């Protein structure tokens, strides 16, 4: 693809990096060339901290099928009645 087409979402949560847990402020989502995954294109997500350290991120690269399965799994999990938002809109 080699495109800059990217979706960036503000999120609230924490991620576990090499130096421990840190707050996550955004999720950058794109389907493009991965850095590492052995596929030509991957669904990539960078969970990013808000500070100046570019290494403060959790990155995942998923093949398209895995990404769809994960997305459906997340939505299915959140569909249960007992899941309640805790103040993050």
């Amino acid at each position, binding site marked *: *693809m080699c495109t800059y*087409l990217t979706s960036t979402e503000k999120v609230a949560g924490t991620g576990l990096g090499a130096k421990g847990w840190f707050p996550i402020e955004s999720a950058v989502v794109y389907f493009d060339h991965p*850095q590492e995954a052995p596929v*030509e294109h991957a669904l990539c997500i960078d969970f990013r901290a808000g500070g100046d350290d570019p290494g403060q991120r959790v990155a995942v690269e998923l093949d398209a099928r895995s990404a769809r399965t994960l997305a459906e799994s997340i939505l299915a999990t959140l569909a249960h009645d007992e899941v309640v938002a805790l103040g993050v809109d």
Partner: protein
Amino acid sequence: MSSDKIEAGTITLVSGQGDEIEAYHARPVDAESYGSVVVIHHMPGYDSSTKEIARRFAAHGYGAVVPNLFHRYAPGASAGDGAAAARAAGGVPDAQCIEDVSGAVAFLKAQPSANGKVGVIGYCSGGRQTYLSACNLDVDAAVVCYGGGVVATPDQLTPERPVAVIDMTKDLRCPMLGLFGVNDANPSPEHTARMEEELKAHQKTYEFHTYDDAGHAFFWVERPSYNAEASRQGWHEIWEFYGEYLGG
């Protein structure tokens, strides 16, 4: 026996807009006179694969510089972190890219044994940026390796990249070599046909090669997309092309 000694390493490059960015410089040590090439890295960043390409040019008798187009977004970071930071910021603006490549051209021309001729080559998004650079800077030869996004629809334009590069073709200032894979989706064979149409319409000097069984990024040795035969033929075309126009 001619010398095959090369020297390579990180330098600080002054961009055309005056600020400093990281870059990688490789050169033949004992050549009395040589042509030079700006190597524009792909979307995954300023990485070891691209630096290896610079050393390959040096081993073939060319000076080469890889400007780190993502430096401003993550100084000193790994290639992956730099690429992620640049993407999160919206990507490299075309105007900034032109200034960085301009700085690299000036640096190469200023080297003691440089013959004054400078080409540009780029891969993936760098292929598009090569097309962009060749339409906006005085360079002597441009090699576009599967540059996606040269042909762009209005909805694909952004404040950072406000003009479709193909619409700059009339300003192309040098011969162009294009290397593509027939199975690539971006640029697709339809995209490259559109590029050829525009280059012909403006009577530009160019040659395109589209390789059977190859897709995007067929030069990238470490990836599944690598295609040995397309890469072999592509490098042959590069040496012929730069040999003619850069005096390498």
